[in-house]
Every structure is written in C-alpha cells, then in structure tokens.
C-alpha cells in the first residue's frame, strides 16, 4: 500500500495530507489522554503499535505470485479506535519513508489515510457491528484485522486511480485493484489469524483492562478475580 515517493502529483499529495490533519490532531490528543489518565493502558498501546511495526515490515508471498505486506492495524483499531491508530501508523510510515525509501514524504498523507485511517475505521465499525451481533471477541478481532488490512489496499487502489484516471476512472480503479486486491486476501487472512491468537491471549491475561478499553462491563464469573488482582 505504500505509494512510492513522488508518485502522486502535488495536488493529490496535498489533498491526502489535508484529510489526515484532523485525525492527527484528534489522535494526538487521545494518545496524550491515555498517557495522562489511563497509564495502565500504555503497555497495551505499545503492544498494539508493535503489531503494526512487525506486520508492516514483513513482505509476504501471495498465491498471485507477488509479495505484499500486512498492515497490523486491526488490534489497535479495535482497542483504541482509528485516530490513535493513525498516530501509530504514521510513526511506522515515517520510519519506512525516511530509512527504507518505502513510501515517501510526499505520499505520506495518502499512505496514512489508507493504512492509518480508512483501514482502521473499517475495522472499528466492523467491530461495532460484530459486537452488536454478539460475536466472540477473538473472532471479532480476526474479522476486524482482515478487513482493516484489505480495505487499506482498496483505498490505495482508489488513490492511485484518482491520480491516474486515464480515460475512465472505473477502469483505472480496476487496473490498480488488480495489482493489490487479490494478492492481499491470503495475506489479510494470515494477519487475521495472528491477531486472533494474540487477542485470545490478551483476553485471558487482562480481561478487565480489555473490557475497560472496549467500554464493556466485565462479566462476573471466572477470571474476574484474577483480572482485578492484576489490574
């Protein structure tokens, strides 16, 4: 999903930056609030960021015969929402743009918008829907991670199509989605399984904190005593 440095014309580079600004501001305020008011959540925030760090560094092979990387944003999107995830993703994308020549500074706005905002937003609202349907939390985390990953690449395709529409925007979208969409499916599923595993573990080790983050009342019963002692 990295759009390489200089590959978006100046207008579009500025356009995606502008769309990111409110999320950066809101996200920074949220992160500040977590540090000040909920220091007990800091470790979970760090781990959520760590998932983005690891997964977005892995270029994985796909059945289509090309390689692509997961985004790792699902966990953070579900637990902290998409503005905080935008901040975490920006850190990773700046690291990759400056040190790895992967993505770029002119395309940072577009890359943050796809990976840090729309993907995680799709993940977050998926979480809301699945929670309404009473799907189990680890299973929800799986679906959230898969869709956050996949949506990111659909947005990248749209961004490239808008910048290079040719004669027909729809055709252009198909060209770019053709590069990313199918390749990404098995990668997104693999990422989803990893995040499912971790969420399953997290629910066992910190049930109370996770329920606090998700704004749910801890269910009375097994595990609660342990959780209280640990929190």
């Amino acid at each position, binding site marked *: 999903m*990295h*759009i*390489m*440095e*200089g*590959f978006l*014309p100046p207008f579009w580079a500025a356009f995606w930056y502008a769309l990111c600004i409110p999320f950066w501001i809101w996200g920074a305020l949220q992160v500040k609030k977590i540090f000040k008011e909920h220091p007990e959540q800091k*470790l979970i925030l*760090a*781990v959520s*960021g*760590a*998932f*983005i*760090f*690891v997964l977005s*560094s*892995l*270029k994985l*092979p*796909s*059945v*289509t*015969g*090309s*390689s*692509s990387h997961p985004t790792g944003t699902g966990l953070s999107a579900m637990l902290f929402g998409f503005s905080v995830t935008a901040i975490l993703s920006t850190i*990773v994308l700046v690291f*990759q743009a400056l*040190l*790895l*020549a*992967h993505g*770029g*500074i*002119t395309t940072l706005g577009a890359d943050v918008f796809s990976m840090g905002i729309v993907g995680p937003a799709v993940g977050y609202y998926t979480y809301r829907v699945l929670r309404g349907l009473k799907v189990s939390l680890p299973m929800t985390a799986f679906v959230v991670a898969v869709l956050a990953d996949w949506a990111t690449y659909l947005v990248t395709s749209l961004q*490239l199509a808008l910048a*290079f529409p*040719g004669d027909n925007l729809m055709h*252009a979208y198909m*060209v*770019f989605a*053709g*590069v990313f969409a199918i*390749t*990404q499916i*098995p990668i997104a*599923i*693999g990422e989803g*399984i*990893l995040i*499912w*595993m971790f969420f*399953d*573990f997290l629910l*066992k*080790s910190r049930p109370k904190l996770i329920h606090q983050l998700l704004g749910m009342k801890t269910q009375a019963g097994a595990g609660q005593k*342990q959780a209280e*002692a*640990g929190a």
Partner: protein
Amino acid sequence: MKDWQKYLLALAVVVAIFAIPFVVNGSAKFGGADMAGSAAIEQQQPGYQRWVVPLWTPPPETESMLFALQAAIGGSIIGYFVGHERARMEMERKGAKKAE
C-alpha cells in the same frame, strides 16, 4: 484443546498460507505489489516522471537490515509483553494457592 495446542495449530495454518504460494505458483518472482503499483502508473499514464525522489535510498543489504530491525523492535515489545503477562499470571496462581 489446551491453549498452546490451539495456538500451535493456528501458527501452522499461518505458515501454510504463506508456503502454499511457492507450491502452486513456484515459478513466480514474488515481486513487491508496491512496485507493481508504480508499474501500473506507467501503464495508466505513460511517461509519468516522479517529481520527488527519496532523500535517501539504502543499499539492498542495509535495506534488509532495516526491515529486520523494524520487525525486531516490534517483536521485542510483543515478546516482552507476553513474558511479562505469563509471569504475572503464574505469580497470581501461586499467590492464590498460598492464600488458601
């Protein structure tokens, strides 16, 4: 099924997902999709010239080192967290036994 068995099975599925491509599509080059995206730009708008080049492009060896470093940073944090939590749960279990 015990937790570790469940996790091990899940990991095996993940490994399979990323190993199957080499079996069913062994002759492919597995180039990066990001690069293919840039190539598709050329197809959509032949002759497009990037208007900015990266400030710095690492040599290939340094690039793979930095990718590994990025994964190592994230992996260390996750490993630290899992170890920390497991030790904490273990201690609580012991504490609870003593209290009885």
